[in-house]
């Protein structure tokens, strides 16, 4: 599977629902839910990679995803607790969950280089899409200053991940 097809597959769920959600102006609690969900799903991808891959660069990246997304999500939960607010499920979160379940099923059937490349290209595409959504839709629309600040910090983190994923894909020579 080449990068283009992986991006397409990873992006279908988001692209199908993002325009409608943007038009509906997701509220802060929905944005918080989706941002948290995206991080939690990436942690699940990472645990799958750690269970199945022996590749050092893949494992290092996956460990970073577990550590960093865990820290960002912990900060999100702490913020929501301080605001006495609960995140609100929504169609975009549901689409992300559905798409990730399908991708995990696909990854689970792969081994060796096929697995490493599928994981790496999915991580690159996933971060590109999530980063674009956070930057273009979430940050401009969120109203609570503390949540906006957290999303900005999170975006800085996710952009570093995107760069790391690009290096991982190149290093694996996935073609």
């Amino acid at each position: 599977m080449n990068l283009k097809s992986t991006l397409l597959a990873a992006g279908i769920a988001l692209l199908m629902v993002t325009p409608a959600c943007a038009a509906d102006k997701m509220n802060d609690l929905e944005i918080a839910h989706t941002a948290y969900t995206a991080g939690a799903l990436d942690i699940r991808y990472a645990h799958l990679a750690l269970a199945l891959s022996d590749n050092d660069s893949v494992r290092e990246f996956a460990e970073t995803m577990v550590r960093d997304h865990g820290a960002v999500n912990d900060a999100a939960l702490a913020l929501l607790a301080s605001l006495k607010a609960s995140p609100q499920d929504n169609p975009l979160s549901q689409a992300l969950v559905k798409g990730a379940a399908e991708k995990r099923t696909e990854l689970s059937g792969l081994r060796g280089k096929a697995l490493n490349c599928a994981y790496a290209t999915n991580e690159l595409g996933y971060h590109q899409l999530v980063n674009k959504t956070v930057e273009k839709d979430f940050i401009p629309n969120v109203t609570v200053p503390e949540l906006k600040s957290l999303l900005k910090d999170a975006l800085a983190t996710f952009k570093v991940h995107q760069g790391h994923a690009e290096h991982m894909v190149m290093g694996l020579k996935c073609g």
Partner: protein
Amino acid sequence: MIGGALWGAAILPGLVTLPAHATRSPVTHRVVMEQFAFSPTVLHIRAGDSVEWLNRDLVPHTATHSDQRWQTEPLNRGEQVTITFETPGTETYGCRFHTAMQAQIIVDGP
């Protein structure tokens, strides 16, 4: 403290001879981990000084020597740790988790 020692030396040139190390107390310098970078990137210190790393990012970072001769524990947001450098030389280090984060400590003689 440093200013006082220099003032005394200026007033009594040649009359007071102090060992070099007696003219300066060890100093603790701060390096901040923020936006996935160390600040300052290059830090000049004197042997016997200490460096305190403070993490202001959302995610954990370390300060890890390039040859792993020393490293800090992972620092979560708001955490800090201090290491003292006794030997002159150049210490190149980075974050173990985010390898694009690189910096140097240049340790001069006391």
